[in-house]
């Protein structure tokens, strides 16, 4: 298939691997931020093709995985209400909360529907004026513009029965949290290409400067990752820091300024709890006061719900790159995709599920 096969070609992969082998002289720890990249790495077997002393650390960039347990519990509480049509992207509906998941709420009679765009949820709201339609607005900067657009659209249509449960998170604060954490191993980042397609990469210069690390904006195909890794290792070997752009076919320095303006218009930055990591200052987006009427947490008064995370799940260590999934004692035994203890085992883009699905037990 044109524009896909070119990025999955074995001969080209071999050339990058040879180059990487030649330039690597010592161990390096590089984090790929995004769950989509982790999935490609494990699916294509890239982490086992690259030199052994280049260690890939799987970062917290799976929005499903980092959505806090208490927010999922809030979603479950809202979805159980008889007047509610609860809409969500597909991969959220199997993520376990404290006692259930959205699939089981659906099995109990809740009206839970998978949608493919938040604008579809707005359409459902317009078509069902006697029901409350809630969209689970999960994601990084990639989904924020469409989620913001849905709120603007609902307001313009005069809809009183549409709201979003926001779990928008931001990448740069998470990178800083990782770099500043005690015991941090990460020496360089592959930044998430699709986040940068929206946001550009102007935000990463100050981080690269402050921590004196290379940040390579990287795509999602196997060859994108091999090239991104090679660029990061080359910078590390040469003692360079700064931001480079591997994914130039999709990403510019400024990014999509109209999308950024839309995010600004609807959301404001605030503190946000990340599953497995805890609260990261100024790392999430919440609806601005003028859009408060579209905030499901307020509409359904679920702000008071709190939840304790599983004590056995080491998601925090996984998402910060301190441990590999198979190093968890529960991996593949007490924690499987059928019975996940924590979110990284549920989502297809979670590091634990990727390791499990693709047979990484050692």
């Amino acid at each position, binding site marked *: 298939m044109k524009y896909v096969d070119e990025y999955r070609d074995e001969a080209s992969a071999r050339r990058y691997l040879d180059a990487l082998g030649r330039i690597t002289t010592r161990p390096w720890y590089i984090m790929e931020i995004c769950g989509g990249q982790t999935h490609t790495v494990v*699916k294509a*077997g890239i982490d*086992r093709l690259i030199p052994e002393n280049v260690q890939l650390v799987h970062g917290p960039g799976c929005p499903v995985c980092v959505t806090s347990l208490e927010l999922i519990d809030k979603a479950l509480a809202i979805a159980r209400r008889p007047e509610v049509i609860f809409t969500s992207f597909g991969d959220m509906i199997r993520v376990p909360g404290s*006692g259930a998941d959205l699939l*089981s709420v659906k*099995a109990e009679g809740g009206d839970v529907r998978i949608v493919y765009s938040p604008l579809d949820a707005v359409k459902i709201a317009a078509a069902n004026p006697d029901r409350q339609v809630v969209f689970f607005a999960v994601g990084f900067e990639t989904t924020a513009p469409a989620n913001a657009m849905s709120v603007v659209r609902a307001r313009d249509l005069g809809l009183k029965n549409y709201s979003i449960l926001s779990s928008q998170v931001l990448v740069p604060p998470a990178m800083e949290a990782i770099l500043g954490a005690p015991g941090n191993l990460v020496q360089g980042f592959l930044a998430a290409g699709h986040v940068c397609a929206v946001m550009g990469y102007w935000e990463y210069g100050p981080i690269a400067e402050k921590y004196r690390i290379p940040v390579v904006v990287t795509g999602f195909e196997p060859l994108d990752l091999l090239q991104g890794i090679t660029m990061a290792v080359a910078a590390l070997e040469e003692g360079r820091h700064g931001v480079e752009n591997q994914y130039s076919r999709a990403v510019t320095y400024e990014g999509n300024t109209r999308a950024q303006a839309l995010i600004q218009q609807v959301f404001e930055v605030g503190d946000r709890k990340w599953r497995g990591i805890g609260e990261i200052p100024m790392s999430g987006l919440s609806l601005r006061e003028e859009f408060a009427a579209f905030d499901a947490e307020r509409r359904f008064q679920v702000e008071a719900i709190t939840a304790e995370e599983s004590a*056995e799940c080491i998601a925090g260590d996984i998402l910060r790159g301190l441990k590999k999934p198979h190093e968890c004692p529960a991996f593949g035994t007490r924690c499987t995709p059928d019975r996940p*203890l924590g979110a990284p085992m549920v989502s297809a883009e979670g590091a634990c599920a990727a390791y499990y699905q693709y047979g990484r037990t050692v």
Partner: protein
Amino acid sequence: MNDFAGFMGATCPIPLDRYPTVQLAHGGGGRFSAQLVRDMYLAAFGNPALDVLHDGAVLDVPGGRLAFSTDSFVVKPLFFPGGDIGSLAAHGTLNDIAMCGAKPMAMSVGFILEEGLPMDDLWRIVQSLGAAVRRAGVPVVTGDTKVVDHGSGDGVYINTTGIGMIPPGVEIAPTRARLGDVVIVSGEIAVHGIAIMSVREGLEFETALESDSADLSGLVGRVLAAAGNGVHVLRDPTRGGVASALVEIAQSAQVGVLIEERAIPVGDEVRGACEILGFDPLYVANEGKFLAIVAPEVVGEVLRVMRADPLGQQAAVIGEVVGDHPGRVILHSSVGGLRAVDMLSGEQLPRIC
């Protein structure tokens, strides 16, 4: 803090496979379905013919071996590009009988109809089912109809059951996969599942894709006539796709299966849709394709027969049975890495980004 015992008990977040209620995933053809079959059905009904867990049972009867299979159809929407629930219900059971190596002889049809279903829709479905079995030369010899309250069904559910006789010299069983055997797929995979997705509510995307739903019994008969006992395993990879079917075979025969990602025929439209949705075509349903695991000496003959048939023109060798990793399927990726291919926990879910 939880101690271990407490953790495994009341406070365990969610033992997904121990739900107190049935989940959609229990019908999805992945691990949940396999658990239901193993832990509930086999426990209640287990016997040598059932325990094989093939697409149909093989029974010794006076004068030969009888293949016997049943299947229920609950597809939404009822009419889709390339077919409808009627033709699908005919093809599904014809194919299950064919996968036992048998020539289908007769079928039963049971309808569960929802009150309020337009009679015209039912007529179209019945006509379509009738046309499909006539083309296959297999009579519907018995049937049943029940009607449920409005709101208790999705218009029409259909159950079909079939029987057929297995010719002498043919011996098809998942346990017959052996070291050195070659894995062949009869054509481009994942077409049916993507064609259905393309017309589901909320996801209408423009595609000319039509379901591959087809009766494979004629083609299978010709393959068996040409390669006979050299054909060891046949399987139509419906729900759960090629991946789940191969994992089941690897586990039944306790052999390893190594497949080559680049050799697997996937059409451009299907690949494009899978890229967008975040689906792996290996797990998407097929209704007009089959897997054949054959002895190396008959590979050429099997491919020749398949490719001469409109239903098998894209037939390809996609892998082999190996001595390593018994019970597991390993895929050699397009960039040269290796990964395990496992059953999915539930249905594939479209991803966020």
